[in-house]
């Protein structure tokens, strides 16, 4: 198959498509998977994000590429989550499946519990937790990406922490 001429250099930023895919596609995929709990849908979201990158050719500031990719990914996840068909039929009983390395199987119980707890958070909490704790963005950056006030981001983070602590404590007690 032949690809469109110059497709690997389409995004107007300092990195080529190959570099952007290599550096950030897995992060986009995992954030989408955390959000939706479904591998096929997470791959579809990742595909949509990078197709949009190639077809729309946005002007990406150096160092802001990942923020743009994750912002588009979260918007797409939110759209899918709001779709009643997706919620009822596909994600009716989402089971958060782990994909550990072969030598880690059997020693991940605690870690799997944390991942599952994050997956069970409501979307608005899940977004800030993933961006802050998983992707390492600052509160200000998250506020900019999600279009909400910094205070709202901090408040959601605080409430998400409380919920996670309760959940994890409950699991520990059992």
């Amino acid at each position, binding site marked *: *198959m032949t690809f469109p001429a110059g497709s690997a250099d389409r995004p107007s930023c300092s990195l080529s498509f190959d570099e952007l895919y290599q550096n950030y596609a897995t992060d986009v995929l995992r954030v989408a998977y955390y959000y939706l709990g479904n591998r096929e849908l997470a791959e579809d979201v990742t*595909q949509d994000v990078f*197709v949009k990158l190639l077809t729309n050719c946005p002007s990406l500031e150096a160092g802001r590429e990942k923020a743009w990719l994750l912002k588009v990914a979260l918007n797409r996840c939110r759209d899918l989550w709001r779709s009643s068909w997706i919620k009822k039929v596909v994600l009716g009983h989402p089971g958060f499946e782990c994909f*550990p390395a072969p030598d880690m199987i059997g020693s*991940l119980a605690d870690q799997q519990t*944390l*991942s599952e707890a994050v997956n069970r958070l409501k979307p608005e909490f899940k977004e800030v937790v993933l961006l802050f*704790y998983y992707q390492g963005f600052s509160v200000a950056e998250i506020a900019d990406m999600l279009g909400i006030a910094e205070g709202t981001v901090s408040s959601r983070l605080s409430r998400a922490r409380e919920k996670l602590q309760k959940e994890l404590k409950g699991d520990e007690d059992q």
Partner: protein
Amino acid sequence: MNRIEDLRRVTDNTLHGLIADDSLKFRILQKVSSEQEPRRRFTFRTVTALCGALAALAVMVLALNTLQPVRPGGPGEINVFAAGGTGSENASLFRDGFDPGSVVSVELEGSSAVTDAEKCASLAAVLSGTAENADSGESSGQERLVLKLSDGTEFIFTAADPYLFDGDGQCWYCPEFFSSIKE
């Protein structure tokens, strides 16, 4: 117990096998390629259609600028002029005026025909100098007044002494002209 602060490390372990691999990259490039093909086709069709429309418009403008006025076929018929053009034949005699010296014949059908250049110029000067626009008049006359210019152009009026009716449907009162031509 793992803490939320460890989410990055925990995710790297729990989702270790969930990676964006080459097959997903291939899917993305394939989708981009398939989306761009119809877009290219659409652009080509749009440009072709626009060029066609512009060409048709250019032909119409060219045609309208080369059309000659349609001559009236008989008494009482009005002159029909096509749009555009630069010749004096496109103008109404009284509206735009003309050079009396260019008239080579004046014929009031059934009454008189003048071909003498001097007499023609004199009659034409009387016509263009004394005719007055009239609000009303009888257009039931059966005579035709035909003025021929040296370039072949003809001006045809329906005549009903002392009125003339031009191709624009205008009525002109010019008793001096009728007196002169009948002398």
